[in-house]
């Protein structure tokens, strides 16, 4: 065969300028293509999870409750209104437990795609950013579906601010997920660490950080679980936006700051761990 265009004459100039400023987007594009392989899972989990939880917990379990758990500015709110923002946040967090663990192990070890990218002008930090963009997009998609179902169930109080809920969902997911990403990128092998994270970190946080009932219900010795839990901060923030849960402005500010701190801190550490691993 003849392929003159393949000749790589040593005198020709470099074909591209580098580093490329859109590198992270290329990584994200690659991730999206991979996600297309399991697009039906994403859609199915995206629709099914909220539907089942809202039905089962928001409506079914609510029939057993004797007392009101929470109230907004206009008095007590139905249980489903109270629980929905927390369920939304736990859905994005659960996306994080998958995408920032097994996907990362796969990139370094099983499929080794990160090493392939590493040989191109793309820097490790851009690989992290690309991953974050792709996963955040999946979280946003899931959150929007959740919000749509919440509206269908009438599980929102304040139609003006509830639109920000997906943003809180993504922020909560990243606040939980980015430190996890940093941790996952240091692992050479999965000997059950991810399953342990799932069961010893995610599950307890899901259960004990004010998802199903206010944190104050727990003995005060356990409140710290909520304070350190991105899930609790995201749920509380979501409740403010969804039905105007009454609380001082500074508390809301603290929720935002804690979530940002987790997310940004995790991101910075992940950039370092990726760079250390790949260079």
């Amino acid at each position, binding site marked *: 065969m003849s392929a003159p265009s393949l000749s790589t004459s040593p005198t020709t100039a470099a074909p591209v300028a580098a580093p490329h400023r859109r590198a992270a987007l290329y990584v994200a594009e690659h991730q999206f293509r991979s996600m297309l392989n399991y697009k*039906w*899972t994403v859609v199915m989990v995206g629709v099914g999870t909220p539907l089942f939880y809202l039905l089962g*917990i928001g409506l*079914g379990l609510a029939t057993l409750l004797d007392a009101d758990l929470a109230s907004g500015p206009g008095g007590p709110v139905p249980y489903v209104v109270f629980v929905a923002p927390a369920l939304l946040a736990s859905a994005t967090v659960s996306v994080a437990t998958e995408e920032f663990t097994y996907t990362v192990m796969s990139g370094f070890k099983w499929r080794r795609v990160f090493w392939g990218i590493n040989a191109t002008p793309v820097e490790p930090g851009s690989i992290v950013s690309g991953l974050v963009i792709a996963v955040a997009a999946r979280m946003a998609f899931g959150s929007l579906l959740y919000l749509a179902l919440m509206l269908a169930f009438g599980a929102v109080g304040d139609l003006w601010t509830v639109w920000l809920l997906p943003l809180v969902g993504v922020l909560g997911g990243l606040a939980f997920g980015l430190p996890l990403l940093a941790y996952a990128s240091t692992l050479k092998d999965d000997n059950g660490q991810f399953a342990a994270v799932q069961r010893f970190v995610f599950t307890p946080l899901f259960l004990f950080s004010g998802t*199903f009932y206010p944190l104050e219900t727990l003995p005060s010795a356990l409140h710290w679980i909520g304070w350190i839990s991105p899930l609790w901060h995201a749920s509380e923030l979501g409740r403010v936006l969804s039905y105007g849960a009454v609380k001082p402005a500074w508390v809301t500010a603290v929720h935002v700051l804690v979530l940002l701190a987790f997310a940004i801190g995790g991101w910075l550490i992940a950039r370092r761990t990726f760079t250390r691993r790949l260079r």
Partner: protein
Amino acid sequence: MSAPSDTAPLVPERRRGLAALLPASVRALYAGNARMFVVRGFLSAKTNNWIVVLSGFFEPVFFLIAMGIGLGTYIGDVELANGQTVPYAAFIAPALLAVSAMNGAVYDSTWNVFFKMHFGKLYDAVLSTSMGPLDVALGEISYALLRGLVYATGFLTVMQLMGLNQSWTAILSLPAVLLVAFGFASVGMAITSYMKTFQQMDWINFVMLPMFLFSATFFPLDVYPEAIQRLIQALPLWHAVELVRGLTLGQFGPQLLVHVGYFVAMIAVGITFTTRRLRALFLD
């Protein structure tokens, strides 16, 4: 196994004798040596993922504390179909026991088997020895059941300490849990043998979630319209929950036999399909 000697048979006599009783169609799949696989499971757990093994005990306990006690403060007592009222924790504890039996059995017989089948290449190596595919299948299931039994004993102890067992029949929930797990594992394995991709495996989780939420686990069935109740009563988890709940709450009665029968049928169907499928995959 006895100490190796020059004349030691490849398959120990006693179990070979048992295997010889089986019909020829099964003998080709089964060398009567499933036990080796259980041994392998324990060795692997010891070296690799003991923390995962351990976590299987904690998960239902976390749920019991968070939902049973935490949320229970807003619920108080639950009235059962027969008019008896029980604290919320006592209501969900047996359900959580059944759910964890289901989860463990399904995980072990689906994801775990699928991964080993398609990626670990473990079975190829094992099947090139005198072990047959059915040894592997029964071995995997037995290992899962043993693990499940340990968890169940732990959980039942927790229930006892929390005063949630209302009758001596609670102890019978141990064999009940084994039966339930066997049912889920045998069907799970049969289904897995048809699966080809990870994406298909995701559907298994997807079926488990609604079952988990709706099978009278967290609230009684009577909140649903009649038709939905019938639908749920056709699902295995509902039978498992009712069986275990009947035992821990001491509602001993003929209805429990229906649940037992359901699982016996499930095991029969599951094993039949698994055997048939293993033949197709490994021998034809």
